[in-house]
């Protein structure tokens, strides 16, 4: 350290931009790869609408299969609102209206559709719908042990009636709601009522199905499901009405529901946060740099050598170091010079420690090969032997 002023690290021009590039290039590459993969994956995949009895859906509970079959020999118009349905029915000469998800329609819309006087297929209709289209038909129960969507595991219900559409179709999976009709034909009886009811109303045939199960993609190829569906929708034009959910009117977002004062307090709140950040973040003067001291242990080379000895199992080196350490420390105490002969050292040591000279010679001057370096155990015995001699010498 000199008496110069503190060294402030200087940055080469452009190194900041390079540092930013070094720090950002990996995240940027990952983002680019993710973007490419997702774009490629989305290419060529067509989005189908989903939902129960949805004519465009390819899901098990959709009806795309039935609609495609119907389209082979008749017009199919898929409509989403009662207005469009009324228009389509009026515009076609011979039309049958298929009404699904009728709970989404308001009573006045139902009245209007019923007033069209067209042939109609009602799929699991609600009470309001039954009243509007087929007064006299009542819900009498459900066939047992079936889920709401309708199961179709068994062979299905037998028609047991003389309605041609049903008789020709044979057994059909119609496990759902059951109806009783004061007038008209009931088919597929199952307990407390019939699963299919056909009534006449002002010259129009109203068919009530207790469930939409026979129409869905998954069940269309079982039993007589497809046949029944084609038979009851027997017209030049099939108007398939699956109303969209009614739009919420006058809805307000959560922010709009907040009192205006609270909403507007966000502005001073932002200012508060900015002031808090400035208060806590403003440093009282710059940081002071200082060169770090060198920290290196003086014994580092010795410890490094110990690691090398151990990794190479250098027992011969260790043995000779231990022996020479023993000799260099203790021979001068015996009154011998550093260049004393092994024989003189051994005899002097034997005099002082009382050990047999042969034993000491084997310990200190074993010759080659050295039996004390055979394995780690022998080396430990050598160290113990030397320590024992040191103790006797000091006694």
């Amino acid at each position, binding site marked *: 350290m000199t008496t110069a002023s503190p060294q402030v690290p200087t940055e080469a021009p452009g190194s900041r931009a390079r540092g930013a590039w070094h720090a950002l290039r990996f995240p940027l590459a990952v983002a680019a790869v993710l973007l490419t993969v997702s774009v490629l994956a989305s290419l060529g995949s067509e989005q189908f609408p989903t939902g129960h009895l949805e004519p465009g859906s390819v899901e098990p509970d959709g009806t795309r299969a039935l609609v495609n079959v119907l389209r082979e020999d008749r017009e199919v118009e898929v409509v989403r609102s009662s207005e469009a349905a009324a228009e389509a029915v009026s515009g076609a000469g011979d039309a049958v209206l298929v009404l699904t998800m009728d709970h989404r329609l308001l009573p006045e819309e139902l009245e209007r559709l019923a007033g069209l006087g067209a042939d109609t297929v009602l799929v699991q209709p609600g009470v309001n719908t039954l009243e509007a289209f087929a007064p006299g038909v009542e819900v009498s129960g459900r066939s047992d042990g079936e889920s709401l969507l309708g199961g179709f595991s068994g062979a299905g219900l037998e028609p047991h009636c003389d309605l041609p559409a049903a008789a020709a179709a044979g057994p059909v999976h119609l496990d759902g709601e059951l109806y009783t009709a004061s007038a008209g034909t009931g088919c597929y009886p199952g307990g407390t009522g019939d699963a299919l009811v056909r009534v006449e109303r002002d010259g129009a045939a109203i068919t009530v199905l207790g469930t939409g199960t026979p129409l869905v993609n998954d069940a269309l190829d079982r039993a007589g499901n497809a046949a029944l569906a084609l038979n009851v929708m027997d017209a030049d034009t099939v108007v398939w009405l699956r109303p969209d959910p009614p739009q919420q009117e006058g809805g307000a977002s959560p922010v709009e529901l907040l009192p205006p*004062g609270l909403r507007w*307090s966000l502005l001073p709140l932002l200012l508060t946060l900015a*002031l808090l950040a*400035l208060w806590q973040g403003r440093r009282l003067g710059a940081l002071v740099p200082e060169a770090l001291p060198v920290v290196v242990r*003086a014994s580092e080379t010795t*410890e490094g050598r110990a690691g090398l000895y*151990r990794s190479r199992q250098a027992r011969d080196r260790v*043995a000779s170091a231990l022996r020479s*350490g023993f000799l260099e420390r203790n021979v001068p105490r015996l009154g011998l010079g550093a260049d004393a002969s092994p024989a003189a050292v051994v005899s002097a040591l034997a005099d002082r420690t009382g050990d047999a000279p042969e034993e000491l010679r084997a310990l200190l001057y074993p010759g080659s090969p050295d039996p004390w370096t055979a394995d780690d155990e022998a080396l*430990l015995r050598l160290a113990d032997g030397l320590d024992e001699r040191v103790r006797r010498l000091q006694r």
Partner: protein
Amino acid sequence: MAVTGRAALLALLATVAVAFSGLLGPQAAGVAVALVVLLVALDVLLAASPRAMRLSREGDTSLRLGETATVYVIVTNPTRRRLRGLVRDAWPPSAHASPRSHRLRVDPGERRRVATELTPTRRGDAHAAGVTVRSIGPLGLAGRQRTLRAPWTVRTLPPFHSRRHLPGKLSRLRELEGQHTAMVRGQGSEFDSLRDYVPGDDVRSIDWRATARGDGVVVRTWRPERDRRILVVLDTGRTSAGRVGDTPRLDHAMDAALLLAALAGKAGDRVDFLAYDRRVRAQVRASGRGSQVSRIVEAMAPLEAELVESDPAGLVGTVLGTQGRTRRLVVLLTDLDPASLEEGLLPRLSALTSRHLVMVAAVRDPAVDAMAAERGTSTALYRAGAAERTLGARRRVTAELRRMGVEVVDADPEHIAPALADAYINLKAQGRL
């Protein structure tokens, strides 16, 4: 520009007020934000300019490592506004400045003094980094901040822990001089003067020739050699950077060198000092009589071990070149590292020993001695073997140095300073200086 917690609190209150303002929300928000911004801006404008403050310093300029120094900053306010706020006297981290900042209030035309205590943990010079003044406006909401230059340097001197050995070694010196009450005759080797015999003097010191010339019995007094020259050489190369315990070898060597310098100064010898690795890092030449310890301490303070191999040829050349023809004691404080000594210093040592008395002092690492005593497992034995090898190499270098007539002092950090002092006293007692 700086704001206080009070400004954030004000903005928070404004937020709450707007939240309860109901349908007046938009207007209330606008007014609240404008009000807070206006007050903050006003406070910034009304605060005394920190740039206009005049700073000066006083206080300690040097201390020993481990002590605490106090440095003052005097803030003079020449403006017509009152200065309120914070002052921070910034120092490098190792200086451990405390407190970190001061609250301050200086009326117009007045001045105030703030004290910062420094307890450095590193030897050497610490330079003040700057004084930051944060001036807060009269509302206490916001203010201005500026870092001003106020240069000051505090030099941290070596601690000289071994000073506690000085009285004991001095009393040994006095024994040599014969001034010690327990000694009848001084063991010094240099004739000092004649004086009258007083009962109790050693009869062997009676100068019969002088006694015959005069009336009374006259004795000779002796004193140790004086006015010998000693050169303490500190090796600041890589081997001095290694830490023994928690302190670099260099610092242990400094401690020993300081004790030797203090002792030799008291004994009437002249002490020169030289720090060298590949060039002269510090040098002190004795000027006249008296102790050079304070000058040597000053020269040592900024020294750090460099991570370079020392240049023994240059070292020998410097020692021979800068000194006169007079014989002196050259004390070289280095490490008994066989690799660097055998290749560098040993071949060139004869040039030094032919003219001077050379002493090599080295700090021995107790960690290596502890390693050499490890037993029990094979890993411990490998460590013991490596340590024995290091110790053996040290012994060989020591023997080689002694063969060349060099005095060698090899002791662990606790004992290096007294061991070096003892070696010096022994040389003096033998009259070998």
